[in-house]
């Protein structure tokens, strides 16, 4: 994901889809609980925080409260956006790679 614009579009698309699936009121209410987002009444995201990945994580958390399977089924673009990319290989003598990877991504890995 390169620009803030892409993140906004990604979030806007997700909100529009959830407005159809769940309805406007609950979607906007849940989305507006994410502090970094500014959302118009038609569901367009006009601003994100300086850390849009974190906004997406918090956004997903909000909708997981509604339904985890629904998030899994309908928010793949957002889930992909926060799925950690392959970590760079670590020197074997420092920390075991699996543990290092887990620690690095703490707070960004979607709950399963």
């Amino acid at each position: 994901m390169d620009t803030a614009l892409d993140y906004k579009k990604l979030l806007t698309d997700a909100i529009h889809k959830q407005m159809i699936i769940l309805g406007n009121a609950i979607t906007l209410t849940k989305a507006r609980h994410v502090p970094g987002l500014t959302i118009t009444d038609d569901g367009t995201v006009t601003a994100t925080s300086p850390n849009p990945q974190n906004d997406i994580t918090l956004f997903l958390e909000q909708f997981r409260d509604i339904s985890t399977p629904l998030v899994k089924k309908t928010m793949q673009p957002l889930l992909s956006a926060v799925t950690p990319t392959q970590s760079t290989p670590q020197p074997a003598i420092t920390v075991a790679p699996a543990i290092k990877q887990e620690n690095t991504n703490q707070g960004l890995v979607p709950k399963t």
Partner: protein
Amino acid sequence: MLLIISIIAIGATIIFGIIAIRYSLREEKAIKQLVDNELQQKQRFFEITMMKEIQDRIGYSLEIEKVVDVILGSLDTLLHYSTVSALVLEKDSIQLKTHVKEGISKQYLESVKALLLKSYTAIENSESPTVPDGNISGVALDDLNHATPVSFFNVPLIVNDRVVSIINVSSGKQNNFTEAEMTTLYKIATQASEALSRLETILNVEKGKLMAMIGSLADGLFMVDVNGQLTIINNAAKDFLGIPNDNPTTMDLLSALPNSYDFSSKIQRAINHKRQIEEKEVTIDQKIFQIFITPVFDITITTEKKVIGVSIMLHDITLEKSVAKMKEDFTNVMVHELRSPLTAIKASSEMLLQPPGPLSEEEKNKIIGLIAGQSRRMLDEVALILDAAKLEAGLFTIQKLPGDLKKLIAERVQMFQAPAREKFINLLVDVDPSIPNFNFDPVHVGQVVNNLISNSLKFTSSGGTIKITAKPAIGSIVVSVSDTGAGIPKEKQHLLFTKFSQLGGAAQGVAGTGLGLYIVKGVVESHGGTISLESEEGRGTTITFSIPIDGATKPAADPHPALLPEQPKPQRLVN
């Protein structure tokens, strides 16, 4: 003074006022907290009550409609709404149910339906399904009410990644639902979805086990529901009925069953009378079956026996039937085999007791010789029967002694040279001289070789060839007897080593008890060996047996191999 008093009074009033306001605000806050707590308690209580009811209602069945009914029926206690509708998607059906709380128009209901279908297509990324209007309960519709569902929310129920229902709660009033109310319903839906997913997983595992068990049955088994739809069929049933299709239909099944067997009416009878129907003998594709049609009852209903289908079991009794026939044939053969020598003995002994005239010494000896010969024949037959009985009872024993199999084969072949010559049959022998002496039962192995050559002679026509081969293999000696005789039809080959099997020998005018090859197999297996058959109708038969080398010693003919100039070639006798 008055001024001071006034200032004090005003000050006191202000202080008391401030205190009163502070107390009032604190009280208001406390009341609000109390109301919030009460609301939370109410929502929590609603959640627990709903979940308990859902658990009670679903029990061990996956009827989504029941879960939806619970949610729809209990919604009044949680919130105020105009309509609640549910799209219920079960295996092969889709339906819409609506409960109307406030008199809204038909147009309003159409809007709700459209909202539900849009939600479904957005989740599943699919085309909008066709849904009938479904059933509507609650208050009467009022087409004069022009309200539209301005407030609404949809609650999807997802079971194992599959949308099974979407509930829509709507109202004609703006901002009718609070976040807390909506969240409560989502929580209930989530818990219900999880419970249903767990239950479905368990049921699928159990169904898998049951299917594996049914699939592994040797008997054919299939189930038909009350509407005549085929629900389960195992591989054995498909094989028996010759259904190649992986997912056969009732039509495939009906066309595979014989026309004379009125299957549909028998199923109906089992359902109507709620009892098992047994068909003792039904012939399907040259096989004979016992068929059991058993009604299957719904175990979730304990008050009455509700039939939900029938299971049909096909038990193949072809082998039992042919064994019964073989036994019957055997009795006839034995009677014949024993009666012939007995008749000869009786006639001969009567001739000795009451001769029609004076008998010379030579004539007397001839008659006694005849009696002795017939008695031996009878004793051989009886010995065969005894061996067969011992084999069946697991009491058959062999006596292994160090011996020379090459010599034994040569002796037995020698015995058959004369009859082979009489029938103009070539008798070839190819015995590897490197076969060592080893431990085996010479009497019974001799009987095996005898029997195999004798059978080949019986079934090989003039000009044919019989070949006896013996050679060492890893840890055993392999002997085979092959002929260019009539051969054995494929469908009868499995019966060759069974008791009483004549495989049409009697029809070809060849006598015998049919016990010979049964005993041959028993003798070979008692040595720890194996026996096999290769045969093609019209081209001949080869029977091969192996006997493990036990306590092998070097062949007597090979005491100093280093001194021998070269290995002797296999012995070949051509008759």
